[in-house]
């Protein structure tokens, strides 16, 4: 009986979404994360199973000029209680007019052009427990007004509500020893000021050039990590979020098979004012030997003016990578690269591959090696975290 009711309920829900023209899509995935080495801390594990779901519920009206999107996300991870988490990736109302767009709610906004790291991209907080590549972001509450002109788009952002960076728990990997004390985080500003941030961006395409200029003011997305000894004489690692100003520029020039890319930032308010940059190119050979295969060569240089004192992994590093796109029915893609530190010889190897199976399944494989980081390098904390991640997703 309950089954029948359940099915009737489900059928009703489906027909309601159809009548209202609500579009439901998304994925469910299962992930295996395995490590090649014993962990730095005995509380950590060698293997983690986890599952995630990210549905997207979308509705548009007013001839497509208004829309509502809701994208919740949930991951359950074995062992790591902090990686088991829920987030609202998107809950946005959007209104588009002839020369402006208003976007209100939880959103993700990406800025930039480079491949190795995303310096200019600052609106969203990194969901660091999701993936060590920092590409996953938490939904950011905001009011974003875009003014659209012939001479470019001006975006104004009022970012209402600060999101703390996620870090692995006691039993999780990709963390220092001891783990970062997420509950103890501190801020330079308090109350409403801690929560607010503001940003402005101008972006435009002129012929072969795509240009973006931006400025951000507010609580830094990237925390400094303070080391303290508490009353019980235990070492504590505490995230500290400063109030910063950050100006950024990102430029891409597209010329035949060559993409030239540069990104640069100046940040003040977090210690001494510093600047950082990423510059390089991506060159592609298309349809190699008429097999449909594309081969791309990516080379970038990563710089940070704080030098070896920089609390970041990349301050004087080179990325070289090869990208293979088979352009077959299954959209098979492979990316293999290495980032090496010019001064202390730390190397970071990364291989990513993905392929679709049938119409709805997709498999993704990542293998990463962090080799020979000396003790004073921020990458030292990953020294035992060489891993293989495999994920199988069903898209609906």
């Amino acid at each position, binding site marked *: 009986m309950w089954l029948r009711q359940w099915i009737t309920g489900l059928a009703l829900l489906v027909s309601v979404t159809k009548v209202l023209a609500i579009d439901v899509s998304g994925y469910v995935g299962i992930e295996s994360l395995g490590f090649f080495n014993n962990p730095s801390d005995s509380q950590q594990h060698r293997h983690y199973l986890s599952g995630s779901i990210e549905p997207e519920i979308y509705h*548009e009206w007013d001839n497509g000029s208004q829309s509502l999107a809701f994208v919740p996300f949930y991951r359950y991870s074995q062992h790591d209680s902090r990686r088991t988490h829920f987030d609202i990736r998107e809950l946005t109302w959007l209104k588009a007019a002839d020369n402006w767009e208003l976007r209100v709610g939880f959103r993700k906004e990406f800025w930039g052009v480079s491949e190795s790291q995303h310096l200019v991209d600052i609106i969203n907080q990194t969901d660091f427990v999701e993936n060590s590549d920092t590409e996953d972001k938490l939904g950011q509450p905001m009011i974003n007004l875009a003014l659209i002109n012939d001479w470019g788009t001006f975006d104004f952002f009022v970012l209402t509500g600060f999101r703390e960076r996620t870090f692995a728990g006691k039993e999780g990997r990709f963390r220092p020893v001891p783990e970062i004390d997420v509950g103890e985080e501190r801020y330079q500003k308090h109350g409403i000021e801690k929560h607010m941030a503001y940003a402005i961006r101008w972006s435009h395409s002129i012929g072969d050039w795509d240009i973006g200029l931006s400025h951000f003011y507010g609580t830094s997305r990237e925390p400094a990590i303070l080391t303290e000894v508490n009353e019980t004489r235990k070492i504590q690692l505490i995230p500290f979020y400063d109030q910063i100003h950050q100006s950024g520029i990102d430029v891409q020039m597209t010329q035949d098979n060559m993409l030239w890319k540069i990104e640069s930032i100046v940040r003040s308010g977090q210690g001494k004012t510093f600047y950082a940059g990423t510059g390089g190119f991506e060159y592609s050979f298309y349809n190699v030997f*008429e097999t449909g295969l594309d081969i791309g060569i990516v080379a970038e240089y990563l710089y940070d003016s704080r030098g070896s004192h920089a609390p970041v992994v990349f301050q004087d590093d080179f990325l070289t990578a090869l990208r293979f796109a088979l352009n077959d029915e299954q959209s098979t893609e492979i990316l293999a690269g290495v980032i090496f530190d010019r001064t202390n010889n730390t190397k970071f190897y990364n291989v990513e591959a993905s392929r679709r199976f049938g119409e709805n399944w997709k498999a993704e494989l990542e293998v990463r090696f962090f080799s020979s980081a000396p003790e004073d390098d921020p990458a030292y904390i990953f020294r035992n975290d060489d891993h293989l991640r495999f994920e199988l997703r069903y898209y609906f």
Partner: protein
Amino acid sequence: MKHLILVVFAVLFTTQTYALEENVEAVVDTLTPEKQGLEIITELDKRDTGFGDSKARLKMRLTNRNGGESLRSLKLNTLEVVGEGDKSLTIFDSPRDIKGTAFLSFTHALVPDEQWLYLPALKRVKRISSSNKSGPFLGSEYAFEDLTSFEVAKFSYKYLRHEVVDGIDCYVIELTPKYEYSGYTRQISWVDKNRYIVTKVEYYDRKETLLKTQLFKEYKQYLNQYWRASEQLMTNHQNGKSTALIWENYQFKTGLTNRNFDKNTLKRSR
């Protein structure tokens, strides 16, 4: 010396009579094969001018050598830009893992096209190289260059003959790409003499061998002027695969403007 002049004169005279004979032929066909080819294509292009903008849904059915099939579905919006090159926005709906991916393209006659790709998982707009002409589109037998909007200036033309195919009287014209990075040395097009629409195209690869044949079926006329095929079939003779395009819900003059083909719209396309 006198002798030589005579010889030259004789040569001149004979070529002149030969030219005269050619002229007589030309009176019938009026023009050289090149000019004739260009004239037919210009007329075809003229008859398709003025549609303003269009929206359509597209299903792609990919069939491999063993008969295995896979499907893709897309939405395609086009804005006619007279004298420049059309703008188009392609939105992917399936396979589901690339749902929401969108592709914005500004076609140009002779300078490279401008293209942007929107990746919904990263919310990232990427300017991409438009040099990829001959590569496959979504793993299909259609190359990017087969799907970009047609501009007269992109090819040189040569009228070959006329031929009746399936009861339709056709001009047969050779098209040679003038743009860089094409995968073809030439294309042979069959143009319906009456309706000025393409019914069949043969594609010759860089080794001059027949690579693919495309058939256009079930043409429908919209707004009493614009012909669109409801089905297109591309067969690759070298790998035995084929791709069918099935067009649905064609709409014209829907009021799309440049604003519907900018990076802001690209980011919110579903």
